[in-house]
């Protein structure tokens, strides 16, 4: 069975602080994809990143970075120098290569305080 756990329900940080959102996943598949989505107060799901299970390289995109570690089944997301606009709910998700549905974590609500 597939499962994604985001243990942090809510996080508050002061603007310009760094923050890491944790994601732990479970799957027995060797091929799978991991995702992060942002859901701002407006409600849409904004795609942030996709990684496949064979690519453990960490990725940096501006203030965002992702740390994928298969050894610990984790795919953590760090926001550097947080801004108020980063306030949102962030979802980690997993899809199987041939299962075609998303398994979402329960989301982490991030509030950045000015």
């Amino acid at each position: 069975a597939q499962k994604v756990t985001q243990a942090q329900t809510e996080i508050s940080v002061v603007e310009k602080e760094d923050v890491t959102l944790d994601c732990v996943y479970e799957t027995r598949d060797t091929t799978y994809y991991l995702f992060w989505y942002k859901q701002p107060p407006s409600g849409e799901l904004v795609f942030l990143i996709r990684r496949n299970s064979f690519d453990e390289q960490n990725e940096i995109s501006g203030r965002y970075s992702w740390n994928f570690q298969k050894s610990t089944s984790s795919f953590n997301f760090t926001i550097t120098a947080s801004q108020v606009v980063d306030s949102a709910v962030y979802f980690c998700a997993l899809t199987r290569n041939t299962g075609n549905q998303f398994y979402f974590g329960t989301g982490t609500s991030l509030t950045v305080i000015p």
Partner: protein
Amino acid sequence: DTAVSQTPKYLVTQMGNDKSIKCEQNLGHDTMYWYKQDSKKFLKIMFSYNNKELIINETVPNRFSPKSPDKAHLNLHINSLELGDSAVYFCASTWGLSGYGYTFGSGTRLTVV
């Protein structure tokens, strides 16, 4: 040129009514989905269609009936609406049965009063 479009964006209706939510994608994808996000923000799949055929049908009341007239459209019809149906419904599409390349619509907020 919205990739996955849902209509309406907001829907407020009374208990017992029947309503439909429409979804259209212009990405050339052949697989489409409906997800439900409840009041606690939990997102869960409801249905999946591949080439107009139902391939995923989670434990959803049979008051919910998806219809896919063609590969580009997947509509969701809900009969006898209940208070507990209030949620945000997301449509999504992708190519094939792979988990690669998902695109979500912007969601439809359904409120049953």
